[in-house]
């Protein structure tokens, strides 16, 4: 039996004024699936993510998250989101543990005090990204890779059914990439969560992906990494070549 789709876009289009960013895109991500979304800069990847998350409304087509329209979805905490670190201002005077704990706020009920289950979930998430020793460190004093792991832990801490990540490993060191890969694989394998990852740097996760979706306003390729590799693109070995290859794609 086909696992249920946790994220789905049906004929979705979106424009910023006269500029079309996403054009008639069909995309589904099923429970337990690990999918990468790739494309050159300005190809509409982040816009598609924002449409799927309900942060933007499509001009045409429909979006479903966990079987419901984003605006109708209850228990929204089941959707985890890791935004681009470079657009996030992490100079907040807060510790690693405080930022990660904030990821439980919606699940717990935003008016409630954190309880034992919340503290255990925070411990677990911090261990998953190897930041348990730095839990009392101010988040602004961490390295870029460590800050990225804080954001991933904050998304993991609510134990999401679907995790959406926007360029999570851009400029991140190799050790952080390895820990990042391990935590995503753990989420997919042990919690049957779906992961949708936008990134130019897929080397760390290339062997674990179920599907790669290539887009440039429209979906140009949607299939397993092996099939993409047969066209001459090797995600793991020539990760840096991918964007250049994509720039040559006809729209």
């Amino acid at each position, binding site marked *: 039996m086909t696992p249920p789709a946790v994220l789905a876009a049906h004929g979705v289009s979106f424009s910023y004024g006269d500029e079309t960013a996403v054009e008639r895109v069909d995309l589904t991500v099923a429970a337990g699936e690990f999918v990468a979304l790739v494309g050159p800069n300005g190809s509409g990847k982040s816009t598609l993510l924002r449409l799927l*998350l*309900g*942060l933007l409304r499509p001009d045409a087509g429909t979006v479903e998250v966990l079987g419901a329209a984003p605006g109708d*979805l209850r*228990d*929204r*905490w089941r*959707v985890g*989101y*890791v*935004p681009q670190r470079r657009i*996030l201002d992490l*100079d*907040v*005077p*807060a*510790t690693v543990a*405080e*930022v990660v704990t*904030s*990821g439980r*706020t*919606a*699940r717990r009920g*935003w*008016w409630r*005090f*954190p309880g034992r289950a919340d503290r255990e979930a925070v411990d677990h998430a911090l261990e998953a990204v*190897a930041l348990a020793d730095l839990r*009392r*460190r*101010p988040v*602004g*004093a*961490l*390295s*870029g*890779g*460590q*800050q990225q792991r804080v954001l991933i832990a*904050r*998304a993991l801490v*609510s134990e999401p059914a679907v995790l959406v990540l926007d360029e999570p490993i851009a*400029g*991140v*060191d*190799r*050790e*952080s990439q390895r820990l990042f890969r391990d935590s995503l694989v753990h989420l997919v394998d042990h919690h049957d969560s779906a992961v949708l990852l936008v990134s130019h740097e897929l080397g760390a996760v290339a062997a674990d992906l179920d599907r790669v979706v290539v887009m440039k306003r429209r979906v140009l390729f949607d299939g397993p990494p092996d099939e993409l590799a047969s066209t001459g693109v090797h995600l793991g070995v020539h990760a840096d070549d991918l964007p250049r290859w994509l720039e040559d794609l006809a729209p």
Partner: protein
Amino acid sequence: MIPLTTLAALPLPWPFEREYMQLALAAGLVIGICAPLIGVYLVQQRLSLMGDGIGHLAFAGVAAGLLLEIWPIWTAMLVAIVGALAIEWLRSRGRTTSDLALALWFYGGIAAGVVIASRAGDGGLAIVPYLFGSILTIDRSDVQVIVLLGLAIIGSLALFGRALFAIVVDEESARVAGIPVGAGNALLAVLTAVTVVAAMRVVGVLLIAALMVLPVATGRVVSRSFRGTMAVSAGIGAAAVVLGLAAARQWALAPGGSIVLVAAVVFGITSIVGGRRTAAPVSVIPADRPPGDEHDGHQHHHDHRHDH
């Protein structure tokens, strides 16, 4: 209202042995604690001047109260809350992208206040205590209102503070997770308006924002956690009230200005001393970085942006 002369002062030491100083202390402590607690969120949202702007609007509300012969606290509260919600509504829709738009809004408020006050009789003199504060002439009913407003602010933060924290850390992720971001930001705007109105008689509308920002600026230098920043900021706000009132009593100074000056001096000293101290942890970060972190040059640069 009970005449002040019939009340017995509490047995407190100098400079608070007199009744009027005790009332000033009670009102001042409420504001000294509450203003920075709200300010921690405003500063993180890059809304440090929000208190200043709402103060200008509240000024128009005070003038309207004097003209209509209604207790100015209530008219100021109405205008400040409506104005704060309008500012937040415009901000959330990206319609106040320029400082100019906010400046027009705020100075329109103070200009309206001046014009309305000039029609209120006595040449508008009754409005002066609200401009610069008049904490030493505060009476019991003022203190009661200020304490009630302070309890409302602290109660709201106890209930909604964790959601507001999630919002100020990352508004977009909070929205995705289902936290009511619009309602949270509206609540913060209303709490700012309530704090401004409560603080009018203490430091005046022109200096309210200082008590929302200066203790927080100090707290951010010396604290490692958000909770610690809130505690330190509130503590410094309270200390500034005690020391400012003492200085005002000793040297016959304007109490509102004295309180703010104490907060400013504390921030000045802390930023010089704390700046030296906080430089150290950033410089030793590579020592406990995992192997391979040397590739992370971009963020290293980002970290240094926050050096003091």
